[in-house]
């Protein structure tokens, strides 16, 4: 199957180095301490953060820093074929772990000892790049909750199909079986917090694909910053903020 046409267009009409349209909204869940919706094309994710709060299970309490918990699940209606298992399967458990480790790298947990931060992420619509969208949504939700962070974590995927590096793969491109790199970075600190890859890739091509993913992450970081700044400016009437 031809994933990139001779004119240099992908199946959904994008250029190889073009991202899908992104949209974010803060404060989607009124009862949560922080929440956000993040959309990347047809992938739509909602994240809710609760905490820092009292640790529910005393045996898990850590005296030196906060306990970060994460739960990822896909809604039954998120894909074309209705899903049977939405939570607790191996894939969900692995992605929960990935998100938790990525977010722990940016949260200043030592400032909140003996407390607990819960991150709940649900995929409402899935069209490739769900874990990237989940990390971006979780970052926004954490910032909304006022949890101290070193930097904003942003994530983006990139792949290599038809001898062309592609940015922000959708489901069809993701399912093609080619190399798929998911990258998470701290843009201001220039540090990598997540790097996952399916399939094999020559080292020289990996550098190109990674550079493409980094540019995507930085573009998302700029957008997330704009959303956070706009949210703060909405409250500028307030004298006490």
């Amino acid at each position, binding site marked *: 199957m031809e994933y990139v046409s001779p004119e240099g267009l992908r199946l959904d009409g994008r250029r190889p180095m073009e991202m899908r349209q992104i949209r974010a909204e803060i404060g989607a869940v009124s009862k949560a301490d922080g929440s956000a919706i993040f959309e990347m094309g047809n992938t739509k994710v909602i994240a809710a953060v609760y*905490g820092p709060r*009292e640790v529910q299970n005393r045996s898990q309490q850590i*005296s030196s820093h906060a306990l970060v918990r994460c739960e990822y699940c896909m809604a039954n209606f998120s894909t074309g074929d209705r899903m049977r298992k939405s939570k607790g399967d191996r894939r969900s458990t692995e992605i929960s772990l990935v998100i938790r480790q990525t977010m722990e790298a940016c949260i200043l947990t030592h400032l*909140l*000892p003996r407390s607990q931060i819960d991150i709940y992420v649900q995929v409402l619509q899935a069209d490739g790049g769900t874990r990237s969208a989940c990390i971006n949504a979780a970052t926004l939700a954490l*910032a909304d*909750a*006022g949890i101290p962070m070193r930097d904003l974590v942003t994530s983006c995927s990139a792949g290599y199909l038809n001898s062309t590096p592609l940015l922000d793969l959708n489901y069809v491109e993701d399912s093609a079986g080619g190399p798929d790199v998911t990258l998470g970075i701290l843009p201001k600190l220039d540090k990598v917090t997540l790097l996952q890859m399916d399939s094999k890739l020559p080292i020289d091509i990996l550098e190109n694909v990674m550079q493409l993913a980094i540019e995507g992450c930085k573009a998302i970081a700029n957008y997330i910053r704009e959303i956070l700044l706009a949210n703060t400016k909405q409250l500028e009437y307030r004298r006490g*903020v």
Partner: protein
Amino acid sequence: METKSSSSSTNLVDQSVCPGDVILDLSNMTNQTIKLGGGLRQDCDAISVMKAGRLRFSKPNKYWVENSQKRYVPHAEDSVLGIVVDSRSDNFLVDIKGPALAFLPVLAFEGGTRRNIPRFEIGTLIYARVVKANPGMNPELACTDASGKAAEFGALKDGYMFECTTGLSRMLLSSPTCPVLDALGKKLSFEIAVGLNGRVWVSAASPQTTIVVANAIMNSETLSGAQQRIMVEKLLERIH
């Protein structure tokens, strides 16, 4: 926290900032002390932001980030509204919307002795002052002011308690009086207790007045002073 610096101004003051933003570079600064408030931290030779909000500066040398959130981070000398969740022999456990439950010693009341220990049922609403707030231990409360007098602190009877953001509670306690409270106070009589932890208690003679005051305060969060006054007038038109 104190650090040496030569310049007390930064172009980000009164601007919105995000986590990771560097507001001051200390590598080429000497001879002056700066003080860092909430939302800022020193990372090697840079002062960086760790919470999204608006950067503020107070002369001569204080920087902090003002932000609004639902959770409360305890600070000493804050007045808070807490809910009793458990009672022990020597203290009450109080929920103040923080990372951990707070301790309220049974002797932390005016004239508190072993003879006259107060009896609070679980669910009692208490207006208290944060005495200690160290990160490694549970916050400690007291129902007395610094001089040991009860002042306005203690259990709150009747009334209605609702939750808001920490930013709104700071606005309600700001000086001069917040426009929404000013406008309501001219037309209605009611009692109000505002906790810096994002809880507000309102008590009035009639439920109607209580509901109007509570709704007006909750609606005022994103309104300017003039808009708050107009909103109060419209609410009062409906009940008179």
